[in-house]
């Protein structure tokens, strides 16, 4: 059984009285346990929208979502999810350990476990030395790092990451990639969105390409390269989008 499933998922944003934006159009996706699934797509293609839908932050216009067999609002299902939003922002008056403690408590994790994990996670994302610093003094990359740490506080089965390496320096990017692979090996299913094709190429076991709210295609990298007769992921990305746009024009 798929760990995350969407069926006919659509999202229309209403702006004012008449203007509507179709951000997601009839997307049916299955993500299997143990995958590192990458969502690719140009700006505004609906990546963030689909992740927000999965977390119940926004509501679908049509379609259904199942996470571990439950709907996206299920408290039980959410206990197993770690989420890193796009350009994350947290309570800026708290320090790293305080923010981890706050989220840990929302998961009902015992204080001693939170304390242990806090030290471990701060070391993992390289923020241990900044542990006394309030988040308002963090740089963009540091916020991304603390975000990754908070998304792991509940030792989740599913990790949902919206552009996890945006704002990170090259070493941070590499560290994050290695970390994701390590977490995946330890049994976590990972769903991420990204603009960095090379990153997706290196870590994802399966990918989906979104464009203007449509799910163009899904599959393994090798499978898709063959299908589109593409040389690499960039070539594939361009071909998939061009194919859709020309079909649309007709």
């Amino acid at each position, binding site marked *: 059984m798929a760990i995350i499933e969407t069926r006919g998922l659509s999202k229309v944003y209403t702006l004012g009285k008449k203007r509507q934006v179709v951000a997601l159009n009839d997307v049916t996706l299955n993500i299997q346990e143990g995958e590192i699934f990458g969502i690719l797509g140009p700006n505004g293609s609906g990546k963030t929208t689909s992740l927000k839908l999965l977390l*119940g932050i926004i509501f679908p216009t049509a379609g259904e979502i199942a996470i571990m067999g439950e709907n996206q609002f299920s408290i039980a299902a959410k206990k197993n999810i770690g*989420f890193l939003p796009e350009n994350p*922002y947290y309570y800026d008056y708290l320090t790293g350990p305080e923010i981890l403690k706050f989220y840990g408590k*929302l998961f009902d994790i015992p204080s001693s476990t939170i304390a242990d994990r806090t030290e471990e996670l701060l070391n993992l994302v390289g923020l241990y030395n900044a542990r006394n610093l309030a988040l308002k003094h963090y740089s963009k990359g540091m916020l991304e790092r603390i975000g990754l740490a908070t998304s792991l506080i509940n030792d989740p089965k599913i990790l949902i990451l919206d552009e996890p390496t945006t704002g990170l320096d090259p070493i941070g990017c590499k560290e994050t990639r290695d970390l994701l692979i390590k977490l995946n090996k330890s049994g976590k299913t990972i769903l991420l969105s990204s603009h960095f094709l090379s990153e997706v190429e290196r870590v994802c076991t399966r990918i989906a390409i979104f464009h203007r709210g449509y799910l163009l295609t899904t599959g393994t990298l090798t499978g898709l390269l063959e299908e589109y007769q593409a040389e690499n992921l960039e070539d594939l990305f361009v071909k998939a989008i061009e194919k859709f746009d020309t079909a649309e024009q007709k």
Partner: protein
Amino acid sequence: MKKAWVIALNTFQESLRKKTFYVLLVVALVVIGASRFFSFLAAEDELKMIKDVGFASIEFFGALIAIFTALTAVSGEIEKRTIYPLLSKPIKRSHFIIGKLTGQTLVIFLNFVFMSLFFIVLLLIKKSPPDINIFKALILIFIELVLIGTITLTVATFATEAFNLIFSFFLYVVGHLISYGSQILERVENTLLQRLGKAFYSILPNYENFNIKDKVVVGVSVSWKYVGTNVLYGILYMVIALLIGIYFFNKREV
């Protein structure tokens, strides 16, 4: 519900780490204290002045704290996007709202206690120990402050921060003028207009109900029945506002 408490403590902590709380509290204490320096007045008038200024300051600065705390509690959370990671956690949206309300009420209470204690100490210095009517007036002010905060929180669930700020202050003023408004309405000829006006006024919170300071200051006592009725009015209003807030927040896309 334990998680609502976690949210409440976080909200409380947030207020105590921001300057607004202290600045408003210090200004309030200065204003309350300044009334002491009207010593050129006759002793009796001076005492009246201290009480007048004291009650008015506790109410006014308390209202400012209530509005600003409630604004950061929900509107701030949405505006700054800290709501995204929060809503992805295993917490019900209703518990989030209840937690926020509890947290901001703790802040309002703390501020209220500081101001009231200062006020009472001032009365003691002037050798005029507060009588029960002083406490009745304070109780009603506290209920009013919590109600003001609750309404701002409710509005935050469906409106923007900027709108909420303006609306809350507007309501604060209008809520105090309701009694005058209904007096004017009595004289309106057009019955339809009168009915509409009355409906409008009965929906709005009548903050003036919580104001007994004019009586207390001149030594007129107010019955417990009046206090009880209006505490009940306040609580009922809050519960309804809270339910409306939860209803809208359950549907809110952030």
